[in-house]
């Protein structure tokens, strides 16, 4: 479905992404996880024709993203990190203009269907400026799925939203997958990547440092973590392959100790020494 081959983007001396190669299968939710500046948005921007790569290539359905951008644009939709709705227009007009740009047939009924599904039908004639951040995010997703795209790109879809709205949006994303959609999602929220992704690619400083299912990635570093502070106050993390192994490490700690299941943050810490969520 989507194939990246040694994809690279430089901004002068800065390498935003370097030699990215991976595949995303049909009807998969693929999560790109990494801290701010890891290259997640640049990757999405290349795949959605906003940024031209310096080297390498990206294919969608076998079509080259740089060589045939119009063909790519017929197949994709994007929920960007920044809200790019027309602020001084109504929700209905925003969707109508998007539908006209994308030549979506049966537009009026599809707009109604999408606005009802995100709970904004009653507010359809209201100016976007009167919408909360969560409502605007829901509208962005409704706009993106209006034409039933083959691939949906979500760039940090829940950034800055409260936990309740975040979970509403997760359910919307799961419904899109259930309807057959393929999704590439970027996030720096560990919980989000684990909750939604079939597979996760972890990015650090523009490079792909791990790629697998969340369960396998966690197995790779150990399913349990023993966490405590050492004498000088530094936090110590012991990755353990099993519960029994973890229990052995409990004895090492001289301060308060926690044993828990590992998460993707632990994978990132193990591989890079840094943290994803700041």
């Amino acid at each position, binding site marked *: 479905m989507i194939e990246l081959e040694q994809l690279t983007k430089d901004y002068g001396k800065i390498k935003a992404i370097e030699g990215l190669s991976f595949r995303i299968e049909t009807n998969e939710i693929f999560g790109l996880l990494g801290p701010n500046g890891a290259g997640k948005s640049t990757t999405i*921007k290349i795949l*959605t*024709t*906003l*940024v*031209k790569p310096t080297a390498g290539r990206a294919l969608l359905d076998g079509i080259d993203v740089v060589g045939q951008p*119009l063909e790519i*644009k*017929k197949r*994709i939709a*994007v929920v*960007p990190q*920044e809200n*790019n*709705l*027309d*602020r*001084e*227009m109504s929700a209905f*007009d925003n969707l109508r*203009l*998007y539908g*006209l*740009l*994308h*030549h979506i047939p049966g537009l009026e009924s599809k707009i109604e269907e999408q606005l009802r599904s995100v709970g904004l039908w009653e507010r359809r004639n209201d100016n976007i400026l009167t919408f909360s951040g969560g409502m605007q995010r829901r509208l962005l997703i409704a706009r993106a799925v209006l034409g039933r795209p083959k691939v949906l790109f979500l760039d940090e879809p829940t950034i800055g939203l409260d936990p309740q709205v975040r979970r509403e949006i997760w359910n919307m994303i799961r419904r899109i997958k259930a309807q057959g959609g393929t999704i590439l999602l970027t996030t720096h929220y560990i919980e989000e990547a684990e909750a939604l992704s079939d597979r996760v690619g972890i990015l650090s400083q523009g490079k792909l440092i791990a790629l697998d299912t969340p369960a396998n990635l966690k197995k790779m570093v150990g399913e349990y973590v023993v966490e405590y502070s050492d004498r000088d106050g530094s936090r110590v993390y012991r990755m353990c392959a099993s519960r029994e192994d973890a229990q052995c490490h409990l004895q090492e700690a001289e301060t308060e100790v926690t044993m828990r299941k590992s998460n993707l943050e632990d994978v990132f810490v193990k591989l890079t020494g840094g943290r994803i969520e700041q």
Partner: protein
Amino acid sequence: MNWYPIFLREMIQFKKKLFRLGYIFTSMMVPLLYLLAFGLGLGRSVEIPGGTYLGFLLPGLVAMSSMNNSYNWVASGLNLSRVYFKTFQVLIQAPIAPTSIMAGYVLAGMVRGLFASLMIILVGLVSGAGFHLSWLFLFTLLLNCFLFANMGVLIGMLTKTHEDTSTYANFFILPMVFFSGTFFPIDRMPKLLQYLILCLPLTHTNILIRKPVLDREGISAILVMAGYALLFFILGSQKIKNYSE
């Protein structure tokens, strides 16, 4: 018709701005102030062979106003949409050709330019200054709006910040306002400067818009204006096609 959604979007925004006092003031009152200051004040002491100064000034103000509004609306709006609101990215990611995006913005800029010219035309018609609408006048007005809306797209795509839009306006638009024959005939300028002035597109608008009938000079003015418009259209479309953040 791929340009239509872009045109429609701009028109929806235009309709909302239309009823704001600030908008009406900047687009219509400024040329009217020029008209009062130059036409009624300075104009008494300026002699124009074969007519009145007001009769000379009015078509120039129509050309100037249509240029300013066609250019500013597009250049400023496109820059804001691209750099700050990111709404331009929605157009780039839509399956439409760069020339359609260009055409949508240009047509919207033309509407704004024509609207801003309307009040000066009305003043001209009731002023008794020998001002009359002809097909050539309307054609020149349309071509001028088309030319500067195209220039607006190009500048809107080139500018990196909103402040840059004003810089471009100060370097290209403002000199044209004062030296291209809006307020006085260009033959009153030193000979060397006249050659430079003839390179400015608005000069040719001012030549053409004052012609009662189309003659050889008028045809060459049309060719120069169309040439500039075509150049800006091609360059603007290329900038949209090669867009990369």
